[in-house]
């Protein structure tokens, strides 16, 4: 990616430090709201309460970051095998009927 010009900041050191600490407090409050365990009321908070109850980490960005991805993959494999057996069973029943 292209390089950008340096970021510009204005004011005296004291003013900039003041802005920094205000920003830090803002960031801490922002993080604090999410870290507190608060969930939105009603249906909007259902997923969060579900995540809390089952301890589901919703933060992974890529599939490899999901801790139990291997189990999920194996689970799908089992579902497909079960579906395949079910289809075979139905075919056999139809053959017997015919």
């Amino acid at each position, binding site marked *: *990616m292209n390089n950008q010009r340096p*970021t510009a900041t204005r004011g005296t050191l004291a003013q*900039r430090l003041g802005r*920094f600490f205000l920003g830090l407090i803002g*960031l801490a409050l922002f993080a604090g709201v999410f870290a507190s365990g608060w969930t939105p009321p009603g249906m909007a908070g259902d997923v969060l309460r579900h995540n809390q109850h089952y301890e589901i980490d919703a933060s992974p960005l890529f599939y490899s970051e999901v801790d139990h991805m291997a189990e999920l993959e194996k689970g799908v494999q089992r579902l497909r095998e079960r579906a395949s057996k079910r289809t075979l069973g139905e075919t056999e029943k139809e053959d017997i009927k015919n």
Partner: protein
Amino acid sequence: MSNGLSSLYKSEDWWAVWFGVVIFALTLGGLISRIPKIGSWTDNPLNAFASFADTGEVSGSIVLSLLGLMLGLGILTTIGISFMKAAHPGRYFAGFVGVFVLACVAYWIAHQTNIKYWGLSYALWALLVGLLISNTVGTPKWLRAGAQTELFIKTGLVLMGAEVLFRKIISLGPPGLMVAWIVTPVVVVFMFQYGKRYLKMTNLHLVIIIAAATSVCGVSAAIATAAACCAKKEDLTLAVGMTLIFTVLMMFFMPLAISGLGMDPILGAAWMGGTIDSTGAVVAAGSMLGPDAEKVAAVVKMIQNVLIGVLAFAVALYWVTVVDRQQRRKEDPSCAAPSAIEIWHRFPKFVLGFVGASLFFSFVLVPEASGGYEAVEADYIKPVTKVLRGWFFCMAFAAIGLESNFRDLASRMERGKPMILYAFGQSFNLILTLLVAYLAFMVFFPGAI
């Protein structure tokens, strides 16, 4: 970008490849078996760095391992920086230490248990921490020397190649492929054309990043595409900000809509897997519909994730052969089509490292490994390359924050066009994915699951 043989040791792209090669060689040779990561914590912030016995004494700590990691990565990247002459080595190393510490802070916030439930990843916190510094006290010169965003992103992407295993695409059979691999390219092309021709957005980099993030896998796809088309940091920041916000909203409301409509859970799971941007949010939303839906949603997303390598390669090639040429023709109408050698010179080489790592792990290492891909994942990817990739991305986002300011970000909004592009593209994605998922799981392959 330097041309000729000297570019092998002077260009950032090649250094990203060399760093990847060194890390892969050390990992496969058994010299690196585990990379430290910041732990999860709920009430006691120190639990992120140490575990405590019942008596209150420290029973284990990762602080020394983190220092070792910082030194190791610092020394490795300083070698590259010295050859590239990108910064004074001493100043770079001091700045690198600062950026690494900011990455630790971002991980520390992101790994708080309740924050994880919200799906707010390290990328958001790293950006915010960097932006806080750059927009208040200003990023000091010593710290800016270590903010080598491009190098961190490109090295992270080469390492990510190991996680893009092509075997995964057959995990759900033909219906999974239909949902993940037919819809995704259609949405990318549709959104790019919509942004370019209908919205008439002038910043095509931002258009393709938003298109990739919406249709493939959110932040990871945004990073890969931004690097492949040499976008500006502000473009990536905007796209990542939008995708993180919409991901949380979709994780909240899609399961409710699916349950409310009385939709088949497997169909709903495939729909969410194909549309919600990040895998963690897909797993959480899928789990709301039941255990089978959780599995299907996660695997559809995983199959889509594998497209990231193909996408990065295609975008890099398209940019070099078409977009760059169009830009040059505006300045010089007689500009001819680029020759093969020119394409080679302009092509971002780290993409070759990314795709090469993916092909090597998929078709050489996995077939040779005694335990198959599960052993490769357990021995090399999960404990080493994935964690290192995360560190590089986290440092990259902290560096982006350190080099960005809100005024520049606001100037790229083009009267809200990026938001319109995201909203319209995501709506199109939702409709098309639902249609294809219905055809795949209910009409063509009804007994697949």
